[in-house]
């Protein structure tokens, strides 16, 4: 059969037996036209002719009508609109000649759309044919209904077709069509399928003698199962036994349904697909039988082929791939999974390109099962090889997908390196997606952020054009948020910029990073301020306006960082090409920056040009782009996504805090899943209202000292999400909790004894979170002391969406502890429950109070009763730096009174707590002992319990 259509020359043009010579002549005419114009002319002539025939007073006989309809069909196929002839076609339907009827139906199936006015007329004709005794006529009618498939059709025939399907008198040919016709109508009108006893009658079609009927019924049942799996549960055992009969049949048993020695391959595939809508059968007998079938299919794959024809191998492997699919879907038989993986491994180096393609695609799913993830990794080399040697871009694309899916912490460096290598020669069509994938993997599995910076800079170097804004924004975000890589990043971009030709994106990243952190490498004479500036400026004239604008900002930042090159930079700002640039943005920046540098004092300049505060951590913007790029994710991909997340979290339901902590430790270096920006001092001072900072305290202690080196950086391992709650004692805004599925952010404000907390729930996944229910409860010790009023939220959060929940609260009297926040929802059918706390601690109701030293100490002495004082002595956990301590005290909500304590090392604070009933004065003294790395904290308050509560709260912050 490979030779079909090769024999053209040997054949005469077929002239129709029934003598429609006019049609043949017309077609030949068209084919002989030498130009498009001539063809259009000939067609218009013919259309005019047909139109006049139809309009003319002479009544046309059936033969003529048929001829003209055929011509119209041909014209339509050539891409010309047909706006008449419909009525004639409808008339043909009621002809008593089969051939005329047939062509009428054909015309309608090709040309009549669902909104046509003709539908009513058509319906009557169909009704007649449907009740015909001739199965050929009935089938014409069924085909027409399926073709139009509209609501009207469902209304008109919703009763007849189900009856036709299950009636004992219906012939097989008709039954088969009725099943698919019903399926088509079901897609438009779901109510069409009657429930009750019909369910079992439809399911039992799987037992029908006729394989064609079973195949059609299987498609119908699959659609019904999708809508209502419970009702059609009964199909599982029937499907398994049918499958078992086919799989164990010898190829002579099924005669005509054996295709190139494979028994009923289509039906087998359909049955296996159907079973994938259910979990593995519970009944051990059915389950055993199914596993036997799968086993047999896997065994047959190892047998020598019964035919050399590609059709044999296609049919056999179609079944095999479907069997592997169901094995992956059940994800419960480690033995079968490993065999499936080995089988796919064999296909990876098969000579048939189609099989290699499918093997790569299917392995992607296998990579997400915990049983087979390791087995898939064994094929890493082959997959990398496929990337290098496959001739077909579709196949290489699958290899990229698989590498992405099989990547984990152990092989990330190698895979990222290979992908980078491939990127240099990759097809243009897949470069952008590859860049995104590399960027995501590098970020996700970075154990060392210098590696991450290297990878991204390499990306820009190799495929700068395909590095979207999101990617280079992201590297900047990470560098800004992670002090430990800032120096390295500055050094690396500086080196990269020395290449004679570097991509504009590199200039952007370089400009930004040097503008922020150029000082960290300025100590080295090779990268002295002037050298940095000249290097950047040497690229300036080659760049677009947007990049130049960015560089101008870098320059003004340099004026702040390196006063010694101020005049050099001012010269550049003054130059005509900037100050009088035709680009309004550049002109404005140049003139504003110039005047800023001339008129302001260094202090003001330093404030204006201060280092950027850390970025808010949300879901990686790159991941969002990748999701958007892949568009509507197929069900398979969505499933894969869900499983990847499940594997990484190793979550099933999350019952308690310990598990949450564990979960977060397992993803500790994962920036995608966990936000780790260091706090900057101003983030707590300025009420910017954005979500800022999570691990403030870990980083708050180490500020950058502007002397050319970085301070020793805190390690990258971070505390889990449960620790975030503690940090909220000293801050009001930030990310409270985050895992791979959800991010919970907090924005809160307090005034006197009242407060309002906005809780933001962000769905990070590509599937909606269902049954979403957050509850806040005020427990034991806080009972009656604090009230909360919670606004309800919608029970579902769409993929990628964020919802806000407002919590109003009032402090009635001082209290210890935090209200509980329980968040429960369902993600991918797995119920999740997070037990958290609402960051509502008693200190939130502090109002800072300023006072001089005299009044502080007089009040201090007034509160000298032992019960009014609480004292704690504790060891320091973080670095003991004044700036960090101040940040905490300010965040705690008290007024920091400077220059009051005789010992300048000590801190004293004052504040009032507002409750509904009273105001409680509160004074604090904190004495750091640097040699011993200890603090002594003393709090005195006008109410006895308050001092103890506050001491408890604050002591945990150090």
């Amino acid at each position, binding site marked *: *059969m*490979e030779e*079909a*259509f*090769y*024999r*053209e*020359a040997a*054949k005469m*043009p*077929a*002239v*129709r*037996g029934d003598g429609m*010579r006019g049609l*043949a002549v017309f*077609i030949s005419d068209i*084919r002989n036209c030498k130009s498009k114009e001539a*063809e259009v002319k000939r067609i218009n002539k013919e259309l005019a002719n047909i139109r006049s025939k139809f309009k003319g007073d002479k009544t046309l*006989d059936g*033969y003529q009508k048929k001829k003209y309809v055929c011509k119209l069909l041909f014209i*339509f*196929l050539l*891409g010309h609109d047909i706006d008449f002839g419909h009525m004639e076609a409808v008339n043909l339907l009621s002809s008593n*000649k*089969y*051939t005329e009827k*047939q062509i009428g139906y054909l015309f309608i199936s*090709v040309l009549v759309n669902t909104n046509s006015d003709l539908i009513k007329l058509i319906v009557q004709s169909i009704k007649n044919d449907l009740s015909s005794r001739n199965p050929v006529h009935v089938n014409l009618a*069924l*085909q027409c209904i*399926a073709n139009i498939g509209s609501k009207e059709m469902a209304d008109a025939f919703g009763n007849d077709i189900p009856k036709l399907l299950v009636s004992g008198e219906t012939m097989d040919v008709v039954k*088969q069509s009725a099943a*698919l*016709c019903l*399926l*088509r109508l079901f897609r438009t009108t779901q109510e069409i399928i009657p429930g009750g006893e019909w369910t079992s009658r439809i399911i039992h079609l799987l037992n029908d003698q006729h394989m*064609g009927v079973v*195949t*059609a019924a299987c*498609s119908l049942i699959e659609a019904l199962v999708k809508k209502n799996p419970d009702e059609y549960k009964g199909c599982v055992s029937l499907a398994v036994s049918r499958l078992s009969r086919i799989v164990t049949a010898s190829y002579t048993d099924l005669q005509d*349904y054996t*295709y190139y020695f494979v028994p009923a*391959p*289509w039906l087998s595939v359909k049955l296996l697909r159907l079973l994938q809508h259910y979990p593995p059968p519970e009944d051990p007998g059915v389950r055993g039988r199914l596993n036997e079938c799968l086993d047999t299919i896997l065994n047959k794959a190892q047998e020598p082929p019964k035919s050399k024809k590609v*059709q044999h191998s*296609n*049919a056999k*492997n179609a079944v095999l791939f479907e069997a592997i699919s169901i094995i992956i879907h059940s994800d419960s038989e480690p033995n079968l999974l490993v065999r499936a993986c080995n089988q796919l491994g064999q296909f990876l180096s098969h000579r048939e390109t*189609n099989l290699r*393609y*499918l093997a790569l695609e299917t392995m992607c799913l296998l990579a997400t099962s915990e049983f087979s993830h390791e087995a898939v990794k064994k094929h890493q080399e082959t997959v990398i090889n496929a990337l290098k040697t496959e*001739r*077909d871009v*579709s*196949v290489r694309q699958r290899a990229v997908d698989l590498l992405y899916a099989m990547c984990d912490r152990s092989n990330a460096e190698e895979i990222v390196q290979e992908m980078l290598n491939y990127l240099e020669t990759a097809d243009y069509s897949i470069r952008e997606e590859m860049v995104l994938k590399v960027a995501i993997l590098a970020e996700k599995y970075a154990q060392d952020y210098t590696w991450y910076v290297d990878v991204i800079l390499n990306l820009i170097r190799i495929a700068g054009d395909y590095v979207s804004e999101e990617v280079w924004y992201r590297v900047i975000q990470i560098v800004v948020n992670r002090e430990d890589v800032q120096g390295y990043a500055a050094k690396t971009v500086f080196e990269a910029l020395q290449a004679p030709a570097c991509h504009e994106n590199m200039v952007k990243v370089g400009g930004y990073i040097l503008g922020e952190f150029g000082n960290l490498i300025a100590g080295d004479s090779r990268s002295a301020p002037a050298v940095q500036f000249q290097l950047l400026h040497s690229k300036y004239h080659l760049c677009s306006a947007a990049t130049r604008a960015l560089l101008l900002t870098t320059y003004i930042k340099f004026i702040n960082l390196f006063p010694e090159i101020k005049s050099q930079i001012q010269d550049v700002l003054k130059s005509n090409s900037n100050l009088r640039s035709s680009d309004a943005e550049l002109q404005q920046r140049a003139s504003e920056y110039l005047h800023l540098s001339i008129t302001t004092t260094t202090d003001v300049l330093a404030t204006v040009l201060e280092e950027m505060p850390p970025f808010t951590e949300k879901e990686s913007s790159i991941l969002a782009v990748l999701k958007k790029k892949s*568009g*509507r994710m*197929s*069900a398979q991909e969505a499933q894969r996504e869900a499983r990847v997340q499940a594997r990484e979290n190793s979550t099933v339901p999350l019952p308690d805090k310990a598990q949450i902590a564990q979960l977060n430790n397992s993803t500790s270096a994962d920036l995608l899943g966990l936000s780790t920006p260091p706090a900057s001092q101003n983030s707590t001072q300025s009420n910017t209202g954005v979500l800022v900072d999570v691990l403030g305290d870990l980083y708050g202690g180490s500020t950058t000292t502007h002397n050319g080196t970085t301070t020793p950086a805190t390690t990258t391992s971070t505390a889990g999400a449960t620790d975030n709650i503690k940090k909220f004692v000293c801050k009001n805004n930030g990310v409270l909790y985050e895992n791979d599925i959800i991010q919970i952010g907090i924005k809160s404000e307090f005034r006197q004894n009242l407060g309002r907390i906005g809780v933001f729930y962000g769905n990070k996944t590509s599937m909606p979170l269902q049954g979403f229910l957050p509850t806040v409860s005020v427990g034991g010790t806080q009972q009656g002391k604090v009230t909360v009023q919670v606004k309800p939220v919608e029970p579902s959060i769409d993929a990628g969406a964020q919802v806000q929940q407002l919590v109003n609260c009032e402090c009635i009297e001082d209290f210890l502890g935090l209200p509980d926040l329980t968040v429960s929802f369902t993600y991918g059918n797995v119920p999740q429950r997070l037990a958290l706390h609402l960051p509502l601690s008693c200190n939130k109701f502090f109002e800072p109070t300023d006072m001089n030293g005299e009044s502080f100490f007089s009040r201090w002495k007034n509160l000298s009763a032992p019960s009014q004082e609480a004292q704690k002595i504790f060891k320091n956990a973080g670095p003991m730096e004044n700036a960090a301590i101040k940040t905490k005290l300010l965040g705690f909500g008290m007024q920091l009174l400077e220059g009051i304590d005789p010992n300048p090392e000590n801190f004293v604070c004052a504040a009032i707590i507002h409750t509904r009933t009273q105001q409680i004065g509160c004074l604090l003294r904190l004495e750091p002992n640097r040699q011993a790395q200890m603090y002594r904290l003393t709090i005195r308050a006008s109410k006895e319990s308050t001092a103890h509560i506050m001491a408890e709260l604050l002591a945990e912050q150090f």
Partner: protein
Amino acid sequence: MIKAILVFNNHGKPRLTKFYQYFNEEMQQQIIKETFQLVSKRDDNVCNFLEGGSLIGGADYKLIYRHYATLYFVFCVDSSESELGILDLIQVFVETLDKCFENVCELDLIFHVDKVHYILNELVMGGMVLETNMTEIITRIDDQNKLEKQEAGLAAAPARAVSAVKNMNLPQQIKDIKLPDLPAAIKDLKF
């Protein structure tokens, strides 16, 4: 589900188009054009699957195609179909055409658009596989042919006689009927 079945020749000229999801005429032509561009630039021995174009479906859709001499057979399907299964279905379709037309060639598809549709209707219905057993399909087509012949024998005989008489002794008219120059038509199939 099969969303569309497209057959076009090496020049992108459509020979059979069947959509199982509604698209207006203009869209149909654009889809044919886009699909042709995607498929025709691929080598013959690369794999038979590729991701769908932008017009019909996107990432969840695949084009599964086979190239026979002058014609491409392309099935546009969603992810619920087995790739290899569809590939075999194309083969069944072509084998059936071959049997019905006795050595099928592109011209058969051109001159018998209707018949090709009838054969396809026996294979696929409403976008789902209806029948895959070739013997069964051919029996059904034969049944239809028999009906056609009966009707032609009964009713068409007088009509044919009339037209035969009409056309007799009219040499000029016969000359005017341009029968295609066959070899040329094959050499530069210009649609």
